[in-house]
């Protein structure tokens, strides 16, 4: 996890296009300037960033389902529940399931587990648009490679 660069997941563990699900993982860094402010003497992973981590996990699923033709942008959040504190050094298991894709929107149900226990979950809506420019798309493709995005799954999906 490179919090300061908004890279909130480390690796795509599994992508199942038939079931329209994805699993990712991320390790919360042990040190970050963010923890100096959130909170002094009591470092906690900010809830908004946990939501962003669920959104990024969901986003890669949407990119896979739409075969890299659309970029998902965060549009709405429902029923977000932050169930336990996440602290520096913890490893997160994230997952998402596609609930809807069409008419320019996608909706997912996403969750984060830590040590097998549900830590947070939410329903997230994305607005799907064409990649704004080739540079952006190329950057996303590089990021996909970094995250071990299973490109081969798209050919068979």
């Amino acid at each position: 996890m490179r919090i300061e660069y908004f890279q909130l997941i480390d690796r795509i563990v599994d992508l199942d296009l038939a079931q329209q699900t994805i699993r990712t993982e991320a390790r919360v860094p042990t040190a970050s300037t963010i923890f100096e402010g959130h909170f002094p003497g009591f470092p906690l992973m900010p809830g908004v960033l946990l939501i962003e981590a669920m959104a990024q996990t969901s986003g890669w699923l949407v990119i896979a389902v739409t075969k890299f033709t659309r970029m998902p942008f965060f549009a709405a959040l429902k029923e977000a529940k932050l169930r336990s504190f996440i602290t520096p050094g913890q490893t997160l298991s994230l997952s998402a399931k596609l609930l809807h894709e069409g008419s320019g929107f996608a909706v997912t149900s996403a969750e984060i587990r830590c040590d097998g226990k549900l830590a947070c979950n939410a329903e997230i809506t994305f607005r799907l648009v064409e990649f704004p420019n080739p540079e952006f798309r190329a950057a996303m493709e590089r990021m996909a490679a970094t995250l071990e995005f299973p490109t081969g799954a798209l050919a068979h999906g």
Partner: protein
Amino acid sequence: MPSTFDTVANIISETCDIPRETIKPESHAINDLGIDSLDFLDIAFAIDKAFGIKMPLEQWTQEVNDGKATTEQYFQLNNLCTRIDELVAAKGA
């Protein structure tokens, strides 16, 4: 049993916090009620659930974008209710 329009109007009222009495059969969801595409997605989900159907929103949007249909055909509420009744009938056929 409430009419299709009453069910749809109640969903719109609850989803978008629009006073129920301002929602008329001739109201256009976008032009008259000011519902945007994001809110309409929630309305569509609720309608799908209430009627046990799946509205082909993507197809409708595409037809409008391609100039093959007007927004009135799908988003004026009396027309929307007709589309819903057709989908319900097709489901039972």
